[in-house]
């Protein structure tokens, strides 16, 4: 188990380094530069040169890359070009919101998908209806779904705020602002979870031991919840790990629709401004989260199925 963790950790570090280095390389290939983005259209060449010097952009790319790696070794992510603040500080400001959003989205997706799947395998007429609904939801683009929900819950039945985020000072208000975006994410991701849960429940239900349980007269509801759900949730957990990553990317779109100041909207700004250090820090943080999700899933796997060994 310890050896497994160590290996995974090393692998994670290599993954992160690769991801961030690739971003560094891609940014060099992209046209556009941060100086123009900051100074605007009609900056004089002198102003450009002065700013380039201040930002250290006059040095060769390799040198910048090595400096950045060196900083990383000291746990220093550098300073954002656009905001003039340490990248780590910007990430700290934005991370809680994105994590809360992804967590609520996952929770919501599970809360919609699992009961749905259980109902679907129990009552076949519902199966068709739910599968149809789910296919419909899956085919809707996330931003479109977001706009529909926005109009429904914020404009027509003004129950929830339409957009923005008031900060964490009042957790209740914060939650109210997160509900609609989280619901958007949940609805768009519930579909695939539902289909997976349904398929794996059906598979488990055809096993011998289920037949034995039923033959012994165990009530059907108990068969489902006690004997079928746990083994059926194994593939679901794998999927959840993957979904964690999808949710992060989906969050970019949702954050844009609901004007939430999370990692996603920060990434969009960083890309537009060609803010190299910030973008690298963001990629590092997002890759780190995805690696973390996968690690958690692997560990959870062992808890759910004792037959899984860490090797």
């Amino acid at each position, binding site marked *: 188990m310890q050896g497994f963790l160590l290996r995974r950790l090393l692998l994670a570090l290599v993954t992160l380094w690769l991801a961030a280095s690739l971003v560094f390389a891609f940014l060099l290939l992209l046209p*556009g530069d941060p100086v123009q983005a900051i*100074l*605007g259209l*009609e900056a004089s060449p002198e102003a450009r040169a*002065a700013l380039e010097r201040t930002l250290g952009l006059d040095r060769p790319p390799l040198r910048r890359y090595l400096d950045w790696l060196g900083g990383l070794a000291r746990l220093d992510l550098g300073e954002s070009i656009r905001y003039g603040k340490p990248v780590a500080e910007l990430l700290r400001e934005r991370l809680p919101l994105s994590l809360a959003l992804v967590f609520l989205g996952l929770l919501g997706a599970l809360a919609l998908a699992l009961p749905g799947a259980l109902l679907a395998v129990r009552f076949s007429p519902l199966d068709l209806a739910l599968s149809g609904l789910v296919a419909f939801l899956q085919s809707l683009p996330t931003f479109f779904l977001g706009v529909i929900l926005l109009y429904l819950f914020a404009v027509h039945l003004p129950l929830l705020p*339409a957009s923005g985020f008031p900060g964490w000072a009042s957790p209740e208000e914060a939650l109210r602002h997160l509900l609609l975006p989280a619901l958007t994410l949940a609805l768009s991701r519930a579909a695939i979870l539902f289909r997976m849960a349904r398929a794996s429940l059906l598979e488990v239900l055809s096993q011998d031991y289920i037949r034995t349980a039923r033959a012994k007269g165990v009530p059907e509801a108990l068969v489902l919840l006690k004997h079928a759900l746990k083994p059926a949730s194994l593939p679901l957990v794998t999927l959840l790990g993957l979904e964690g990553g999808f949710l992060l990317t989906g969050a970019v779109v949702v954050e844009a629709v609901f*004007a939430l100041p999370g990692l996603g909207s920060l990434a969009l700004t960083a890309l537009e401004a060609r803010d190299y250090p910030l973008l690298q820090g963001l990629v590092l943080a997002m890759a780190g989260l995805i690696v973390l999700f996968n690690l958690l899933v692997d560990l959870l796997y062992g808890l759910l199925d004792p037959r899984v060994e860490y090797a």
Partner: protein
Amino acid sequence: MKRTLALLVLGFSLALAQTRGGELRVAILAEPPVLDPTASTSQEIPRMLYDNVLQGLVRFNEKGEIVPALAERWQGSPTSLTWTFYLRKGVRFHNGSPFTAEDVVFKFTRARDPKSGHTHPEYYQDIQSVEALDPYTVVFRLRQPNQDFLFNLARPDSVIGPKGRVEEQKTNPIGTGPFRFVAWERGVGVRLERFDGYYEPGLPYLDRVFFRFLPDQNAQLAALRAGDIQVIGLGVSPENALVLQRDPAFKVVTGFTTTEITVGMNNSRPPFNDPRVRRAMQYAVDKKALVEGVMLGFGTPIGSHRSPGERCYEDLSGLYPYDPARARALLQEAGYGPNNPLRFTFTLAAPYPYERRLGEAIAAQLSQIGVQARLEVVEWATWLSRVFRGADYQMTIIGHSEPHDIGIYANPNYYFRYDSPRFRELYTQYLRTPDPNRACEVMKAMQRLLAQDAVNLWVMNAPYIAAMRREVMGWWQNQPTPSLNVTRVYLAR
């Protein structure tokens, strides 16, 4: 009849209205990189801060005229070489320090130093010296007369902060305006608060202003309808404007801007280095149809690089009437025909919805005369580096929002690559003419020359469209400066 009734009701409610206090929440499209207009030319900075927080010696009013701000009055010498400004007394900055001539001298000494990192040192190049005669009198001496001197002093670049403060102004701007800066919540918005020490008694009316960054037009509309914001400050799409106009809870304000939506042509490269091809483009595009069809009636066709609301405007929109046959003939003369159609790449900038739609419609109109424009959509940073800085393009379309910016045609390295000694001569003549009326004549001649040379295809003056809740009063009808001025805005209750 209906109108008189509405006016009566309006007058009555005004009489009853409570005009003080409250918070105004305004959506703007983007977040600027810094909050100091002397550190970046991002238009979002003056949009929020010009005259609301930061002021200069003079400012633009709603009509675009230059009126006193921190200078009570001023006087130019008969030769236009010496300008004396008499400062308003008793003015304080938001940090409590008094505003004096020292602050003005510091500001303009820095502004005209190209090494200081100030956005536009060239605006101040003709200034030879800035001196404080006493704490409330400042004298500017110019090297040569400059017709745009006062105009440049009214620009957002010319706002004045406390002496010695440069770096801090970028994130924590301190000015003399009716509102003081409170907070910049990164990615969320900028908060302003009423400045109790403002020199104009009784102003401003509002207690707080919150400019929220809402990049998505749908999100803006939803936020307005849900009451999260009360105003969409600019950039309401024509469709949304029509929808909101019909809803009694909202009103739509439309007026003029200083934005010329311009189809830029690379004058130094085939096919547009041939004036016949550029003229053919003018005849082949039906501007009226574009205003009606694409902009649903919002916008005014123009024929040169100046907006109808600006001084010394010359209406040249009729110089090249829509005439596809003439366009075809000109193309034939230039060597293009059915067997050898004119082909080029038309580069559109992704973040600008008006311009993109107009570009697509223009490409469709061009295809009517057999021209094949290949549309290419690029991201903003790409547009800036490839088209704007590198002039690596054939045709593009963008709104030039800066007021009074015809001088860009005097720069042969500007991305149109228009190299005309005659134009440069006229521009210098305009700048050096002290008499405003004679300068105006030269300005008109400049507009005519550009149109005759068909440097670009000037499509229309972009409409100013803002939408707001019914109770928002005193919003500027026009946008002669890139500023959403909220000094006299109030909420009727």
